[in-house]
């Protein structure tokens, strides 16, 4: 989640409240406060659905409402501007959408510059899916001459990218510039790359990769040109978030005419979206009992505009959603904000009246039985990982992998975790192997999931290691186990490579092989680094009983 660094002094000035006041309430607005030993700032995490809070300006705006300092829809005036940007049809298949705006009369303090840079990065992550969907460029407009053109240029086109002092072709930038290397995949497969140039052909930006060095924002920059490019209409939302944040810093917003073949746009569009919602629905969902006016007040505290439609006792609200909110998809999104405005801590937690009779799952009931038996036999329970490798699951066990039965993961985190286990015994031997410094005998077991042909099945496995571990011991355990489960088992000689020839048995129930047991083959023991005799058993038990929710 994006972390926003809030400088107390800066925020106190913007909010108009003391740090103690806003720090006491900020979590209830929806935030995770990080630990900060610093005197002058705190790092706060905001949720991914609220990109409008990724800047200290956005946080200040929300806090003003939440603390009843300034409530209702924030007003932003867009002054008509002279600047135009022409969208060339060549960007259509590459990166079709662009939104622009101009913000003038800015005075950048250090926290303000830091906040703007962080906002850009967080938006690239949160809304932009790492720049694929949205990429933002911010420029010192005094260095370039409008009108601007957005078009798809040949990769051989050269300019000086940000942080470089030599001219590179766009193709070279993708290979040599750190940002080019980082984001080159977005442009993979295109033979022309997006570019924004001014009237003289000087480069503002090569979206979504890098700006030109020419328009770098400096301490003395006063007027900004902002471009947001991408593949989804959310680019206009991102533009609004950046522009309104700058306006909170005292910037004067000026419109840009975006000239397109399908019709011109005047941006930014800071009009509020109107939602008509029912107060009854809000009361039913949240579980409070508020009048239309009260719900409206809660929403105004969250910086919505809210008007009661109709006379006293009216049930409908006309809600104006601020232009920077990217998360309002449904009336419930608005109701959640009403609940936040009301304060989660003010809600009365009440148990629902739903009466039902609970029932355990038969698998878990059987697992408890199996644990009872194994514990009674002196075995200690373990709960190993289910992710394993073919080396452990098959090779070290002298067992052959049957491809159809194995569930391999596509991008394992390590070569130790390439598949989900088909058997639990190997994990038990691994646990024994890391515990050889503890006194013997060691007898351990595990019950749990295995995958067979992609289906979840249930196994029990047990192993015992000590100087006199032998077939008789594990055979006794098998007898006791099946005796307690009241299941008739037939024991046949086995071919299971994990165990020693002549000292291994298959467990047959109703003519079907459900497991095996015996003395581990010394090669198996060697491969796990063990030097004591050991015995083991494994049973696939989930189909031993008729399926269904029987009284147990």
């Amino acid at each position, binding site marked *: 989640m994006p972390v926003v660094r809030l400088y107390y002094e800066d925020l106190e000035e913007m909010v108009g409240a003391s740090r103690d006041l806003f720090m006491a309430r900020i979590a209830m607005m929806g935030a995770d406060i990080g630990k900060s030993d610093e005197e002058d700032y705190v790092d706060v995490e905001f949720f991914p659905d609220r990109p409008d809070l990724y800047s200290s300006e956005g946080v200040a705006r929300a806090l003003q409402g939440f603390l009843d300092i300034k409530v209702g829809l924030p007003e932003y005036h867009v002054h008509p501007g002279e600047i135009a940007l022409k969208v060339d049809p060549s960007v259509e298949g590459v990166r079709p959408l662009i939104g622009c705006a101009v913000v003038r009369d800015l005075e950048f303090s250090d926290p303000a510059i830091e906040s703007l840079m962080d906002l850009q990065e967080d938006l690239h992550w949160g809304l932009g899916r790492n720049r694929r969907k949205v990429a933002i460029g911010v420029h010192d407009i005094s260095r370039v001459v409008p009108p601007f053109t957005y078009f798809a240029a040949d990769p051989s086109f050269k300019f000086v990218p940000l942080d470089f002092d030599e001219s590179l072709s766009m193709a070279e930038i993708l290979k040599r510039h750190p940002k080019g290397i980082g984001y080159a995949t977005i442009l993979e497969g295109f033979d022309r790359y997006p570019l924004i140039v001014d009237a003289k052909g000087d480069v503002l930006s090569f979206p979504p990769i890098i700006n030109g060095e020419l328009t770098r924002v400096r301490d003395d920059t006063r007027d900004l040109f902002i471009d947001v490019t991408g593949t989804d209409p959310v680019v206009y939302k991102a533009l609004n978030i950046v522009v309104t944040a700058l306006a909170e810093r005292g910037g004067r917003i000026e419109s840009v005419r975006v000239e397109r073949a399908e019709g011109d746009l005047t941006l930014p569009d800071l009009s509020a979206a109107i939602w008509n919602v029912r107060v009854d629905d809000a009361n039913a969902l949240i579980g409070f009992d508020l009048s239309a006016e009260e719900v409206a007040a809660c929403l105004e505290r969250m910086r919505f505009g809210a008007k009661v439609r109709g006379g006293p006792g009216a049930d409908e609200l006309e809600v104006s959603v601020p232009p920077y909110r990217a998360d309002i998809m449904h009336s419930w999104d608005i109701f959640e904000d009403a609940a936040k405005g009301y304060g989660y801590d003010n809600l009365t*937690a009440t148990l629902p009246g739903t009466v039902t009779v609970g029932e355990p799952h038969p698998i878990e009931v059987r697992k408890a039985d199996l644990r009872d038996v194994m514990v009674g036999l002196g075995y200690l329970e373990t709960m190993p990982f289910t992710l394993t490798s073919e080396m452990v699951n098959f090779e070290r066990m002298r067992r052959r992998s049957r491809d159809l039965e194995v569930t391999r993961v596509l991008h394992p985190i390590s070569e130790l975790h390439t598949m989900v286990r088909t058997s639990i015994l190997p994990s038990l031997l691994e646990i024994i192997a890391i515990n050889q410094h503890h006194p013997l005998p060691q007898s351990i077991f595990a019950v749990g999931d295995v995958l067979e042909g992609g289906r979840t099945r249930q196994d029990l496995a047990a192993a015992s290691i000590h100087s006199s571990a032998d077939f008789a011991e594990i055979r006794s355990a098998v007898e006791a186990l099946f005796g307690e489960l009241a299941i008739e088992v037939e024991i046949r000689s086995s071919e299971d490579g994990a165990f020693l020839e002549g000292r291994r048995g298959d467990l047959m129930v109703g003519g079907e092989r459900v497991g095996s047991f015996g003395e581990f083959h010394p090669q198996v023991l060697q491969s796990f680094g063990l030097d004591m005799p050991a015995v083991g058993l494994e049973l696939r038990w989930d189909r031993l009983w008729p399926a269904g929710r029987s009284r147990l």
Partner: protein
Amino acid sequence: MKITISQRLIIMPKEEDTRSKLSPRDRQVLKEISDGFTDPGKIAEKLKIKEVSVISSAEGLAEMGLISLDKGVEEVCALTEEGARYAEIGLPERRILEIAGVEGVPLSEIKDPALKVGIGWLKKKGWATVEAGRITPKGDALPGKDEEILEALLFQGETSGSALDEEALKLLKSRGLVESRSEKSWSFEITDAGRSALKMAEDSSRSSSAVFDYVAQITPDMIKNGVWEGKYVDYKGTRYEVRPYDVTLPAERIYPGKVHPYQRLLTRMREIMLEMGFTEIKGEIVQSSFWNFDALFQPQDHPAREMQDTFYLDSRAEIPDYASVKEMHERGGDVGSTGWGGNWDPEVARRKVLRTHTTSVTIKYLADHPNPPVKAFSIDRVYRREAIDPTHTPEFEQLEGVIMDDGLSFANLLGVLKGFYAKMGFDEVRFRPGYFPYTEPSVEPEVYIEGLGWVELGGAGVFRREVTAPFGIERPVLAWGLGVGRLAMLRLGLKDLRLLYQSDLGWLRDMPLSTRM
């Protein structure tokens, strides 16, 4: 008196004199002590038995007055790093004296802080006067006991404190030049009574007319046919005494079979859910992206669906009729939602994953049971593509509960959470706004834990209409979940989550069964 020794009747010689109450082991140990071995370790080594057996034997022998036993704590002394240096180059006061020579030296010339500490000691030991800014030696300044100890320790290494001058040792320890630790020590010596008992025992074992009237192991026949009086039994015409044991001696440790402490926590949580009237559900580990993501209204380009967070499999799953889900993603269906826009691709939904949350099982269950009321829960393993470290594992347990019924509200969800956490032993719960892609409103419950403060424990919310509507679920669904591993760490005082899965058997054996989960 003479009886036949049956194989099952182990009988020891006994005379009126307690000195002959010797088991073969006692006799062996006594013999070794008589031969001049004084410490249990050496005797154990010689007899190839455990040291603890030697000690128990010796304690018996001492009780009978056959040996004298010195059980003590010995102080073992050694030089500290600083002490070792001084032992080499001399104490600071000694070195100042060397610098001062006969004439003495101005105080100001002793600049080295390591030397300055010696000035006080010069005065204390009366080796010099310090007056008017000048150190003037007086007397002979003979080597002190403390210096002798330093030298002794330098050459001998670790030395018993009893061999060293007590006063001087105390001084050196207070200066941090010598450190000591205690070691248990045993010292055995045979007594006159012991010598004669040993002789007697040796004689009697040679003699063919040994007297047997001491029983070690009671036999079934003895119980059936003996006439008992206290610890005495008249059996087959002879009176025997059952040999008393020193019941205070430690026994060999045994380790009972036990349920894993983490499993006991999981079981307790299952019980709580069942007590609250929830039905337990289970599902497949391998899920389609459809049930794991799409059914929960996670957009297909959502970061959580990326390769680096989710274990994908190289195969495709069957998915149910997806028209309503596709419509919801693209246009918001008919519940007044905007949807995500764009194009929803069934091929993406068919990709198989290892379930990243139990919610995939929950939503499928709700889709199969769309009519109220439903109260269901599951506790099962889920998979995230995380590298293993003390607080992250690629698989872990998640608990999840849902309630679906007419007229349920977010405030009801808070009520259920309060009830659930109270049953878990957390009486103080508070609620913070949260965010989860498939719930609205969402909440992060925090519980108060002594010493830690407010700790976030789980997440909850009301399933979005975009989630429920495509499956014909028309009533509100309250849902909550938590990662149980985090709770286990709190309850079991664990710093490392891996211990739950790659368990140390010592930890499992030592964790008392009575630990409350």
